[in-house]
């Protein structure tokens, strides 16, 4: 990092990235949070209040991506703003294009990594540990640590990485590593789910009743079938199943 921006400024950006979604709205989505996170950079680069305000207003425009990987985009934007302040770098339209391209690319990768892989993996592992050790809070701790540690590491170090590598941050090694992490988490998730289903059937080696095993198997089957369609949502299905069980309990006992 040989530019004009000090590490402390980038750290402040990373800290503010935690509020990226605090004003999420349908019109500009993360736009306002993005401008708030980038504000320390603009304050460091533009001494002239008029130019600084114009840049701030420019950055409140529409932006949306996966919130963890947004740090990389913030670092890239800091680098480009630094170049702009030095008389080079993209103009307003160019900056908007870079943001749009980065936003889509990071969302495509980040959604798969954090929402589709790490989050369900952390949840499944946490539930498995919680069922195996119900008397201790390890399950919650495992869930939180497995997700929060990589999430916060990327959030805080991502700004520096984006700043150091510029718009090419997602090319090459980083993308390959993240793709590999997605695949690895999917396999690890399958293993954890396999153990979890077995544990639900035979908790602690004690075989559960036929009715309970059948209910678990029915839920699994129905879940796999309903997962092929987006609607009704899993919660609506679960509510419907719950109502059916209630009705059955009422009819059986009259």
């Amino acid at each position, binding site marked *: 990092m040989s530019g004009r921006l000090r590490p402390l400024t980038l750290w402040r950006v990373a800290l503010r990235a*935690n509020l990226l*979604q*605090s*004003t999420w*709205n*349908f019109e*500009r989505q993360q736009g*306002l949070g993005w401008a*708030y996170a980038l*504000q320390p950079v603009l304050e460091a680069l533009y001494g002239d209040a008029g130019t600084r305000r114009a840049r701030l*207003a420019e950055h*409140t425009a529409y932006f949306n991506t996966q*919130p*963890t990987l947004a740090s990389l985009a913030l670092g890239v934007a800091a680098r480009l703003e630094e170049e702009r302040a030095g008389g080079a770098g993209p103009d307003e339209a160019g900056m908007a294009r870079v943001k749009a391209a980065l936003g889509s690319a990071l969302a495509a990768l980040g959604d798969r990594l954090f929402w*589709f*892989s790490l*989050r*369900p993996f*952390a*949840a499944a592992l946490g*539930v498995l540990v*919680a*069922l195996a050790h119900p*008397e201790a*809070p390890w*399950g*919650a701790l495992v*869930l939180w640590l497995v997700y*929060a540690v990589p*999430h916060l590491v990327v959030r805080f170090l991502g700004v520096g990485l984006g700043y150091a590598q510029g718009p090419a941050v997602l090319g090459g090694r980083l993308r390959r590593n993240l793709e590999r992490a997605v695949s690895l988490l*999917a396999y690890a*998730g*399958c*293993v*954890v*789910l*396999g153990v*979890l*289903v*077995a544990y*639900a059937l*035979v908790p602690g*080696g004690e*075989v559960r009743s036929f*009715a309970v*095993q059948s*209910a*678990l198997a*029915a*839920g*699994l089957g*129905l*879940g796999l079938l309903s997962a092929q369609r987006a609607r009704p*949502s899993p*919660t609506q299905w*679960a*509510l419907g*199943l*719950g109502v059916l069980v209630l009705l059955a*309990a009422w009819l059986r006992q009259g």
Partner: protein
Amino acid sequence: MTLQLLLTLLLGGLATLDATPVAQTLLSQPLVTSTLLGLLWGDAHTALAVGVVLQILAASTTPLGSRTPEDYAAGGVVGVGLALALAHGVTLQPWRDAAQLAGVFAGMLAATSGVPLIKWQRRRNEGLSRWCERELRAGNESALGHASLAGVTMAFAVGVALCAAWLAGGIVLLRPFVEHESLRLSRAWTLAQPLWMGYGLAQLLHAFVQRRMTRLGVFGAAMIGAWLTLVMGTP
């Protein structure tokens, strides 16, 4: 019980903050909040029974793009909090089972009812966004910080209010029902719990497998291996 209820509401507000406006560390997930509530109410068993089911259902709900997902941050706190309040001081097992069933139902309904509230907040934030732009043009650069603070405060207040409404309504309306129909509800819980767990686990499996047979094979091998180990016992 009053102090425990107040702290439950506070946790509801904090969980709502973690879910979207601040940090997103998964502190808001039902398993985490249920563990905290279990410690708070001194009933880890009830908290975990409800928290595990809600957690598995929450994990299959993703905040992709501009989609507004179910609010399991508040749902988790409402479901577990309600079950703990209904089972508070009760030793009768059917009553406790009934409280857990009521908790999971309330948690799912609260999570669903949170969707229009989140959408409402997001529309309110549009106004905040336009105000911020006007202020920036007028030279007020601190408007961005004020807007963020306003967004965070509103989300916290909505989270607390949602939890308060569901907990108050749930305790008043469901306590007599749980008390009088505990046997039926307990019977329903013994079947509903594995059914919900199986359903949620299938959603997670679908997310991991992505129609790849190798991954399905890994799942099957892990399940059979773990099942055999559990049934036969480790050597």
